[in-house]
């Protein structure tokens, strides 16, 4: 699927030079969104604000001013990003009608460089899910096969990019929610080092693993979006210092780079077509000069169990704020305040949010805290140590993103544990805080397969460089 959009840097350069109008780019995006509405990737379009903003950018150019590195470039934000004045639902009934009174830092930084938010994308409600079927509104369809899911939870964002609705989209990745939909749709999905991009103004899921990142067609585009968004933010005290050098300055060479293939991910538990595709991709990296070796991280099989304790615990705490009193849905006919809380939450939360709140409440409750939560956080330490040791031996780790390609809509909805197992290869990057990326590796039965590359914390520039080189070799 060739794109109607130029690379982001070229698009912005043409807007700055007056060769392209921001207003036309916005219309092009809105037109494509309308034409491809049957995929249900979008929750709402921001036509009025996007057109107004495009007009301002075109005026700036006409007046000889520079609107920035993303001048006039339309983008789509997952609907858990607060965009000033726009509805922000996180695809949940409890936040239906909530209008953002302020704006996320990520969107602020993109707008400061001239980018224009044109729409809000669908997601699993509160980003809880791996298929976008948990949206309280509607499921999103995979651009390659409308009977299949696009992955999740940033499924709307990934589908929107591959449907050409905008040249890039924003997603969030708490346990794979950027990389999985990238893998299932053939997009590039980048999850940065924990804390590199501010989460201020993004609906919180699990605060110790939540990350923000881009979904794009190319690694080069992802690097530019990351470069604009990253760095310390006084509004998010978990943010870290960014590299002084731009994340767009990439050394795209695999020669002599040590790449470790993760043994625990290349088992018979993954679909044969995915395994073959990833093996073939890795072989191409070897031919291109990479020093490929197998590497074992013995505690990896336990990562998903750690994740499904730690994350529901944090979810149950983060979702406690939705009580129907200060914003969001409030139930009618409650008898007292507590009844109002319970009824509002009963009506406003979908099944998966409730399920995770229940698990989280259980593992944090008195008598179980040590056995579950503390134990999980200690195994997390073991996992971190094993990754640190691995990165003493290799520059990058490689493997599949998921054990399968995009599955049929409805196929896994009745079995929550099976749905959770889809995240088995993505959660470890979140638990350890390392950067990871999904790039297209090829196809299996005509469905996209992603190759996952990971690097040590704060090695985002090196990882993007390797991904850029790999992208070229695999194209």
């Amino acid at each position, binding site marked *: 699927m060739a794109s109607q959009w130029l690379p982001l840097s070229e698009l912005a350069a043409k807007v700055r030079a007056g060769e392209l109008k921001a207003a036309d780019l916005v219309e092009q995006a809105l037109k494509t969104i309308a034409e491809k509405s049957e995929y249900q990737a979008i929750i709402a379009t921001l036509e009025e604000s996007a057109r107004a903003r495009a007009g301002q950018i075109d005026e700036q150019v006409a007046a000889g001013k520079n609107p920035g590195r993303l001048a006039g470039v339309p983008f789509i934000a997952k609907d858990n990003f607060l965009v000033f004045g726009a509805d922000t639902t996180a695809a949940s009934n409890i936040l239906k009608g909530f209008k953002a009174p302020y704006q996320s830092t990520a969107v602020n930084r993109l707008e400061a460089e001239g980018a224009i938010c044109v729409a809000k994308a669908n997601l699993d409600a509160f980003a809880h899910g791996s298929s976008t079927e948990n949206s309280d509104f509607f499921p999103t369809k995979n651009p390659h096969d409308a009977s299949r899911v696009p992955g999740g939870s940033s499924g709307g964002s990934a589908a929107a990019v591959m449907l050409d609705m905008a040249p890039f989209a924003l997603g969030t990745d708490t346990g794979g929610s950027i990389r999985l939909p990238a893998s299932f749709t053939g997009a590039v999905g980048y999850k940065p080092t924990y804390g590199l991009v501010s989460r201020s103004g993004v609906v919180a899921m699990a605060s110790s693993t939540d990350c923000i990142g881009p979904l794009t067609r190319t690694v080069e585009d992802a690097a530019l979006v990351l470069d604009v968004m990253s760095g310390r933010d006084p509004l998010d005290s978990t943010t870290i210092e960014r590299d002084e050098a731009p994340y767009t300055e990439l050394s795209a060479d695999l020669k002599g780079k040590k790449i470790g293939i993760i043994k625990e991910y290349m088992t018979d538990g993954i679909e044969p077509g995915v395994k073959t595709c990833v093996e073939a991709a890795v072989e191409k990296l070897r031919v291109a000069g990479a020093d490929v070796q197998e590497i074992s991280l013995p505690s990896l099989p336990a990562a998903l169990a750690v994740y499904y*304790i730690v994350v529901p615990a944090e979810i149950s705490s983060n979702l406690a704020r939705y009580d129907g009193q200060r914003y969001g849905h409030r139930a009618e006919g409650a008898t007292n305040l507590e009844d109002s809380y319970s*009824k509002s939450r009963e009506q406003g939360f979908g099944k998966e949010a409730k399920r995770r709140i229940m698990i989280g409440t259980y593992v944090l409750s008195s008598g179980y805290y040590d056995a579950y939560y503390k134990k999980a956080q200690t195994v997390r330490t073991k996992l*971190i140590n094993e990754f640190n040791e691995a990165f003493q031996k290799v520059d990058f780790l490689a493997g599949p993103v998921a054990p399968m390609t995009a599955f049929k809509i409805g196929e896994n909805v009745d079995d929550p544990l099976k749905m959770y197992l889809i995240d088995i290869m993505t959660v470890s990057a979140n638990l350890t805080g390392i950067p990871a990326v999904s790039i297209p590796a090829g196809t299996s039965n005509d469905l996209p397969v992603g190759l996952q590359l990971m690097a040590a914390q704060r090695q985002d520039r090196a990882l993007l460089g390797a991904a850029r080189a790999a992208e070229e070799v695999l194209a």
Partner: protein
Amino acid sequence: MASLTRDDILKLAKLARLKLTEDEIAEYQRELADILQYVEQLNDVDVLGLEPTSQVTGLVNVSRKDEEIDYGYAPLDLLKNVPEVEDNLIKVKRMIG
């Protein structure tokens, strides 16, 4: 092997301020047991001498200057999202009764 009684589920729901239907109670009783059984594999992981991790990048006690910041919105802007407002106050149901 993990198992949860109906009372366990009701107690959790109360702690989490969730009302559940009869169907949901039965469903979560089964599903939570499945999930808890899956995570019990952590009992087999040897963590002798290791401390728990809750912050992965090593930041400690990040603070800012104690000064007024302009967040770009007024209290009245925030009240626009409140379901019930009276005299610029958030109106809620009585606490008892």
